[in-house]
């Protein structure tokens, strides 16, 4: 079944691919991330972003494509571009984020394995939460067995960092206060329908590009995706939807 579907897709995309490239390439190339100095000290970048807008929460994202055998094929970390975001990921615990994001994603595979049998669609929506870091996982399944996992993390709000300890839960606090912060920014609340919808759009776009990349004669199933074009397009999709 999947096989047939895949083959069908192969033909369609082989037929369509050149045209889509032509049609889409011009805007895509201009969609490079706004290059703020990535290695600048944290204080500086925070400073500039607070200048741009004061109390808008910035989501951080970590996107992974996993092969059917759980090998990561593609990783990217980025921040929101909505509401004046600069597109740079700022995770809550930057010193541990590098491996913790992978741990969290890996652990959510437990839930994913369960959810993929109970949910008929490819887009599984929000499947898992890791409360200590307030990380939310959204998943998308492809027919070939690759999994797209998106980790999104609302920023640590200064109000809840006061750590009164009692009452002010960082999890509850973030959920409660992000909603009031801005309802216009889609990614403010990770479980809201708007976010689900935005992530769905993002996932679909990435999926489209993933299929095209997988069609490449130089790409073998299970290989890490190194194509810079693909990376650029994922970045663009993130910029567009998240």
């Amino acid at each position, binding site marked *: 079944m999947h096989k047939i579907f895949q083959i069908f897709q192969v033909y369609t995309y082989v037929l369509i691919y050149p045209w889509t490239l032509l049609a889409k390439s011009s805007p895509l190339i201009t969609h490079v991330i706004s290059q703020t100095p990535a290695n600048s000290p944290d204080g500086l970048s925070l400073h500039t972003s607070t200048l741009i807008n004061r109390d808008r929460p910035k989501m951080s994202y970590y996107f992974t494509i996993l092969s059917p055998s759980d090998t990561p094929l593609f990783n990217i970390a980025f921040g929101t571009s909505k509401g004046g975001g600069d597109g740079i990921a700022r995770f809550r615990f930057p010193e541990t984020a590098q491996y913790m994001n992978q741990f969290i994603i890996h652990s959510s595979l437990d839930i994913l394995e369960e959810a993929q049998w109970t949910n008929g669609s490819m887009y599984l929506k929000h499947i898992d939460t890791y409360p200590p870091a307030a990380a939310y996982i959204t998943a998308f399944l492809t027919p070939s067995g690759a999994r797209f996992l998106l980790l999104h993390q609302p920023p640590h709000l200064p109000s809840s960092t006061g750590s009164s300890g009692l009452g002010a*839960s960082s999890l509850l606090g973030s959920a409660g206060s992000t909603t009031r912060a801005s309802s216009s920014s889609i990614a403010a609340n990770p479980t809201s329908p708007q976010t689900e919808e935005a992530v769905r759009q993002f996932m679909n776009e990435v999926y489209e590009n993933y299929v095209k990349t997988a069609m490449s004669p130089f790409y073998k199933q299970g290989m890490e995706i190194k194509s810079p074009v693909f990376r650029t397009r994922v970045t663009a999709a993130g910029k567009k939807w998240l």
Partner: protein
Amino acid sequence: MTSPGDAAPVKPPPSFSPGVARVASTSPSRYPGEQEQPQSLDADLTETPTATSPGPLSSTIADLPLRPGSTHSRSGRSSTPQLARSSVGSPLDGRFDGSEDIRSLIIRSFSPTIAVHASEDTDDLVRNKGFKGGFWELIRPFGETVPGKVVIRDSIGSSRAWEDYGVRFVDFKGIGRAPTGRESGSLAQMEEVLSKHLESSEGLLGASVRTRDVLGYPATTPLCKLFLQQLLCSAPAAPHETFGHPVANVIAISSRNPAPLETLRQLYADTTTGDKHPPEWVNQEYLRYYVLVHDEERDDITESTKLYDQMKRHFGLHCHLLRLRSSQCVVTDDDSMQVPQCEWLSPSEHLSGAGEAGKELVVQSVIPFMENKVAVWNDQVASRRRGISGRFMSMSRRWAGFGSSSRSSIAGSSGGNSGNYDATQHFYGPDSPEAVLRKMADFAFMLRDWKLSTSTYEMIRADFGNDKAWKYHAGAHEMCAVSTLLNPLATSAKIKLDGVDQMFETACYSYLTRCSDAPHALRCLSLAVELLKSRGGSATESAAKWAMRVMDFGLVGSVGQILYTERVAACYACKTPAGAAKWGGRRRKAGMWSILAADQWLKAGKPTLASACLEEAERLYADVLSADGVFPMPEMQSFIDNLRHAVRVEYLEARGFDARDEPAAAENVGTEETSEKLDKRNHRRSLIGLPMQLDAGTLNMTQGPRDTEVPPSDDFERA
């Protein structure tokens, strides 16, 4: 504690020592830790001093000693489950896994409180025999576990026998006298005790810390158990729950007393009036039990018998004659028994009959008294509330306010503001229907009639909310959820679990936000974690959620944080994959939390515990990783490799090894191929070692030249 020379660098963990089988077979009791067998002492000798180490809390928590956890883990569930299983011939053995154990611990922590009020001469007599705390200290251990079965009848008249019933003896003068300022400090104290315990037993814990259930789930670590025990018994008597209020009062005089009956009257009067009597929120209707302590050496038994008969005539049946003897007696004497848990005080101390006295007190007086009270209250107070008129009255009051504040009417007290709640002093009068119902529910709970207690808590919890008696409100919600979970008949039903979650949520909110009562909130959440975990299935996820909530709220200190990290891992590990498809497990999550716990233990300077967690994580990850045991994600892999290496180095340094002897990966980190090769090999080795090989050959590290080649950590990883 143990000198470096004493602790051989890497000695086989105690759980493998030949003592295990014997201990397991000589303690058929369900809770071997409670009744310390003298025979097992030699195996435990090294640990005995730790029992004396509790910090400032020891006065209040000593009735649950520090030792049971570790002793238990060795005797009941050593790393050789088959062995332990076949040697313990108890029919209860099937239920003897970790969760049942924790459940029983929780149940026993809510046991009836019996105040002990002894005359001066009695205390003197007992002090002469080596108990510094007087009569209360002598009798206390005998309340822990009542020997034999205790039969309790529930509200619908069916009986059930319990083997693990116990009561808690407290000093009469201590009831309600705990300084209120202590509440804030009790959590800090607990942390202190924990870290002290950690330091004192670092070497021992490391080896025996991680034992497994029969089914191979990670068992409760002794440390977690210790934490839970302390938590459950650190709460002082409070107005909003009656578990700490006396159910009975033991009034004791001795045969030395010149004016026995007068003294008894005086002691009785102390319990109702005078400066010693308990706070006014304690219901005065408790049982009085009179004990005459006879000194076998100095006094004449005929005199005492005469006096005892006189007492019986005056005070009725609730009397007991306790014969104490302090001479040396042979261990095999039938009528003597060694004082449990007190052997370090004076080993020669023996006494006859105290155990019997405890049992008689519980079986013949306290339990019938409680059953009777529950029946009466159920009949007079609760059923009126349950009845149609009660509901109508309460509704009318709530809506219209024309119900006229009839204090006498029980029904009228529920809606609106009943006026029974003293908002300035924050308690209900002990005779108000709310307080009586709460007491009845608590009694039913202590009698293990969870069905009745659930329904009663359910009935009153809304009233407390209406009165804005937030602590009562929180307590009723908490206990309602707890008794729902304890009720063995209320199985299944996911809807019910949602309700339970909601109740815990409410209780937690009321405790924490409305009352700022962190200790109670912590207790509530810990109960939620343990009970939901023991439910298994989907409840384990809520358990993990509550455990994370504890950490999130910052209710525990640094050691507590690590313990709760371990708890989360244990909760997830409990959820096993179901069906042929093998999905529904939470192995990856459990593994991740174990890794995090290992990381935290390492940062706390406890490499032994860290290695135990690490090994646990490897075991959990074994199912989900491919055969070579390599993590698919590169950063995870490198993090775990680094962690493993750091643990190994610290462990060896702590043991006095020179860490540089080891073929360490540290120098080779730069060279990618070399370190990877090493790590892979180590990992595979430990995976192969998973089925817990017990052959001494591989375990014995001290056997010559091998330990220069083999990284010694392989040994403890498998231990």
